[in-house]
Structures are given as structure tokens and as C-alpha cells.
């Protein structure tokens, strides 16, 4: 059979399997099979692409053996490294790992553009040439930006670059990069000197770094999602250049899905995407805050545990601190004890709990918590007033009532979990520190709130022991 038809048919199958797989991934019941469907599509496409060896252009034929060997080696290294690192990564480190893999995709898209632009004697027509350059620009920004996002979330790069004129400098940089790209397209017709084309890619990579460095760690998930959309677009554009509809479809599906996901995340954090990229969250933390009345009242972990054992309804509001303390397994053990005693236990998840939307669900799932006792904020916020106990573990800003009432607070307007409406609130916390935003939390001073000080893991162990000794003594 003609290899070209076989390649086209394989890509058609891959495009179908990607879309069908993503569709299945959109429900928890079918999600696990969805990724396998999409994975099958990928295998078909990659295997079929080796049939390209039958249709390479005349000039490349003498190099075919070397090129095919290089391709196989590069595939093996990339696949092997990613497979091992993906199996090893901790669930808490998932956001930065996704960022890294995403940056690699952006780099691959930029590399496709670079090969086009560096090919001697290539005949360029204007539209594909402009698309090549725009795709390369977006891909390169996504690569270097994602690497910075990874380094920041992984704690390898700390602090944020902020100085007067930073925005102006970044703006100038971007205009210069784009200008150079357009010069290569319109004035040099794709045959610019090698140094100029190389300079274009270097500038694009530097811009990705400059754009990401000023953004704080709390906002990084939104940025990762944005770069995910960027890579999708870059892949779609380079797919057009290569006349490959599978790349065009997959790239554009991800480009639009990623854009929507970015907007949803930013909305959950009560911020706009431009606000995330162009302004500084931490800078407002030094503002004057109103006096908070009342005092923080500590309670013993065992007592708090026993009170929950005898409650009829308990709602748990977990935050990233729970995962940092690696306490989700102990938490679920405690939850099961309460459930055995007839307590109705539910989890309430704030949209930005964890490090990106849905991250906390993954962390709880890792501990074996079934997803049908985990509720989204809008589904459970009305139930807090019927709850005997609400317990906050490792969360802070997402339960601060100041977001509802205090107009001068930097988190004012952010949707929060209504834990303060429960009859009794317990807050498990290491010390008296503030949250990510640096804002004091009124909830801790409320009349119905008690503080359980200590490491989440140790606190939960004490709670489990207290409840167990109670039941053991009763028999």
C-alpha cells in the first residue's frame, strides 16, 4: 500500500482517539480509560510517522539512515527519561512536573520552526512562513517560561524579580523579538543570516524567563495552565506548516481547552489572567489591617478528636499544608473511625486548595478517599450551618471570612468555604503564622473556633489514639 495513505489514515485515527480520550477523561467514572484511549492514539501516530522514511525529499535521501537512527535514539532517550521521572514523581510535586513536560512540548514545536528556518535553499511562501515564526515564538516562550515555573515550584529558584520599569523592559523585549521575527518573514523572506535567526530564538527564550520571573509561587498554576495552552497553539501552528492535520487538531484542541482552563483557574482565585501576569500579589500584604477582636483558643488534639467522634456531621476543609505534612493517609484513617461510629463525614474542596485546581482531589485520592464524599465548594457551602464540626487542616486564606466582609483586605471578594458557620470549628495549624497572602485570619479568633496546634500528621495520630482508646474502653 502507498505509505502516504497509511500515514494519513493513522493520523486520522490518532486525532479521533485523542478527542474521544479527552472526552472520557471528563468524568471520574471513565477517566482512567480515557488516558489509555488517547495513549493508543499516540502510539499509532508515532509508529506511523516512521513511514515517513519512504517519502523524504530528494536532498535528504543520502542522510536517511543517519537521520532515522538519530530519531530512534532521541525517541528512546526522551521516552525513557520521561517514563522513569513520571513514575517517580511525588503527587505533591505534580504541578511542576506537568510544567516541565509541557515546556518540552513547546521546545519541540520551536525546534520544528527552527529546522524550517535554518534549511538552506528552502522555498518559503509568506503565510506558512509567518505561521512558522509565530509558532516558534510561542513555543520558545512556553519552553523557557515553563522551566522557570518548574524551578520556582520545585524551590530551585526563589524570590521574584520586581523593580520599577520591569514591565516596560519586558514590553520592549517582546516588541523587539516580534519585530525581528517579522523582519525575517517579510524583509528576509525566511533567508535571514544564521545569526539573525538564532538571535530570534535566543530573544524568545529570554523573554519567557523575563515574563515568568516576576510571578509568585501562588500564581504559578495559572501560569502553567497558560503555557499549556501556548504549547498547544504552537503545536497547532507548526502542524499547519508541516501540513499535518493531526498536529493541527490536537494542538488547537489543547490550545482552546487550555485557555478555558486558565480562565477557570484565575476566576476561582478571584483574579484575572492579566492581573496574575502583570501584578504582584504579595505587595499588598503590608497594608494596614483592621483590629481583630477576640483571642485564639487552643484545644487538645485528643479532645477535638473525641468531639468529632460524637458529632453527627463533620466537614473537613483540607489545604496544601495537609499534603506537605503527608498526613492525608492518617486523615482518612481518622475519617473511617468516625464513619464507623455513624458520623456523616464530608470533604469540602476550595477551587484553589492544593497547588492547582483539582490537585487536592488527587492528593486525597492517593490516600484512598473515595471521590463521592469529596465536594466542590459551591455544592457544600450551604451545608456548613448544619455541621456540628468543621475542621480546617493546612488551609488558611481559603477559609478567611475577611474575604466576605473586609473591603481593605487583599483577598476581599475571593470565594471562601463557609467553615465559620459550623457550630464548632477546629483549626489544625503548626503555629500562629499567616497564609500565602500574608493576611491575618479572623476565623482563628472567632468565638466558635479552637486551635489545635501541631504538625498535622502528629495531631491526627493523637486524634486516632483518643478515639480508639475510647471505643476500646467501652466494650
Amino acid at each position, binding site marked *: 500500500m502507498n505509505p502516504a495513505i497509511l500515514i494519513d489514515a493513522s493520523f486520522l485515527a490518532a486525532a479521533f482517539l*485523542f478527542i474521544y*480520550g479527552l*472526552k472520557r*477523561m*471528563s468524568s*471520574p467514572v471513565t477517566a*482512567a480509560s*480515557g*488516558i489509555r484511549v488517547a495513549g493508543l492514539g*499516540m502510539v499509532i*501516530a*508515532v509508529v506511523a*510517522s516512521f513511514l*515517513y522514511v519512504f517519502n*523524504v525529499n530528494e536532498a535528504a535521501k543520502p*542522510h*536517511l539512515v*543517519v*537521520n532515522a537512527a*538519530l*530519531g530512534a535514539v532521541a*525517541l528512546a532517550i*526522551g*521516552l525513557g527519561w*520521561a517514563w522513569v521521572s513520571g513514575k517517580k514523581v511525588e503527587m505533591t510535586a*505534580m504541578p511542576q512536573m*506537568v510544567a516541565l513536560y509541557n515546556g518540552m*512540548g513547546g521546545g*519541540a*514545536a520551536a*525546534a520544528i520552526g527552527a*529546522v524550517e528556518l*535554518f*534549511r*538552506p535553499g528552502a522555498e518559503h511562501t509568506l*503565510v506558512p512562513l509567518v505561521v512558522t515564526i509565530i509558532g516558534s515564538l510561542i513555543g520558545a516562550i512556553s519552553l523557557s517560561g515553563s522551566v522557570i515555573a518548574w524551578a520556582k515550584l520545585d524551590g530551585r529558584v526563589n524570590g521574584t524579580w520586581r523593580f520599577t520599569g520591569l514591565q516596560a523592559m519586558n514590553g520592549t523585549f517582546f516588541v523587539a523579538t516580534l519585530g525581528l521575527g517579522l523582519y525575517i518573514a517579510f524583509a528576509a523572506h525566511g533567508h535571514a543570516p544564521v545569526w539573525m535567526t538564532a538571535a530570534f530564538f535566543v530573544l524568545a527564550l529570554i523573554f519567557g524567563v523575563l515574563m515568568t520571573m516576576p510571578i509568585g509561587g501562588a500564581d504559578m498554576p495559572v501560569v502553567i*495552565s497558560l503555557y499549556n495552552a501556548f504549547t*498547544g497553539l504552537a*503545536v*497547532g501552528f507548526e502542524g*499547519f506548516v*508541516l501540513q*499535518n*492535520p*493531526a498536529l*493541527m487538531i*490536537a494542538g488547537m*484542541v*489543547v490550545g*482552546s*481547552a*487550555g485557555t478555558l*482552563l486558565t480562565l*477557570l483557574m484565575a476566576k476561582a482565585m478571584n483574579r484575572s489572567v492579566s492581573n496574575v501576569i502583570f501584578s504582584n500579589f504579595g505587595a499588598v500584604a503590608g497594608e494596614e489591617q483592621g483590629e481583630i477582636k477576640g483571642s485564639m483558643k487552643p484545644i487538645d488534639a485528643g479532645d477535638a478528636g473525641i468531639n468529632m467522634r460524637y458529632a453527627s456531621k463533620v466537614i473537613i476543609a483540607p489545604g496544601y499544608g495537609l499534603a506537605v505534612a503527608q498526613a492525608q493517609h492518617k486523615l482518612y484513617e481518622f475519617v473511617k473511625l468516625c464513619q464507623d461510629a455513624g458520623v456523616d463525614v464530608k470533604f469540602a474542596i476550595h477551587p484553589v486548595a492544593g497547588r*492547582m485546581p*483539582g490537585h487536592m*482531589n488527587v492528593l486525597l*485520592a492517593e490516600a484512598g478517599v*473515595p471521590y*463521592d464524599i469529596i465536594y466542590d465548594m459551591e455544592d457544600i457551602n450551604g451545608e456548613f450551618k448544619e455541621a456540628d464540626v468543621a475542621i480546617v487542616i493546612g488551609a488558611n486564606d481559603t477559609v478567611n471570612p475577611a474575604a466576605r466582609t473586609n473591603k481593605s483586605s487583599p483577598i476581599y471578594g475571593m470565594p471562601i468555604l463557609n467553615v465559620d458557620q459550623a457550630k464548632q470549628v477546629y483549626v489544625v495549624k503548626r503555629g500562629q503564622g499567616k497564609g500565602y497572602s500574608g493576611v491575618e485570619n479572623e476565623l482563628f479568633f472567632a468565638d466558635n473556633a479552637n486551635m489545635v496546634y501541631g504538625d498535622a500528621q502528629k495531631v491526627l495520630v493523637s486524634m486516632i489514639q483518643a478515639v480508639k482508646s475510647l471505643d476500646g474502653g467501652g466494650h
Partner: protein
Amino acid sequence: MLTGFIALYIFMLAAFTGYEIIGRVPSILHTPLMSGSNFVHGIVVVGALFALLNATTVTEQVIGFVGVLLGAGNAAGGYVVTERMLQMFKSSK
């Protein structure tokens, strides 16, 4: 040839498809889905492979090699982490 308007039709329909798929997803799946869509654009490895196979100079071979390596990392890494996350979701029934 996928000339101008045909390409625009493909892009437009693909964009709507992506929007519709994500629009109905419960937020508990946002992290795996971001990772899953990250995996899907790993298809870029196929384009990089095409560019590498058609390389005629050392410069093209080097860039193409890097492109395939990065693309393969994107696809394989995206698959592994997404599958690991989704495997953990289970119902109490």
C-alpha cells in the same frame, strides 16, 4: 494541500471541540485533565520526527534531534503522570 481556508476550518472546529470538552468537566478533574491535555500536544513529536528525517545539514540534524527528544519527553511524561493520577480516583461503592 491544506490551504488557507481549509486550515482555518480545521482550527475553528478543533477550538470548539476543546472548549466543549473542558467546559463540562467537574473541577475535581482539572489537574488530571490539564495533564491529559498536556499529553495530547505531545503529538508534536511526530512533527519533530518528520523534520529530522528530512534534515540535510548538521544544524538541522542537531535541532531535529533535540526536538524529537523534547517531544518524546512531553508525550511519555504526560501519559505516565496522567495515568497515575486517574488510576487513584475511585468511588466508595
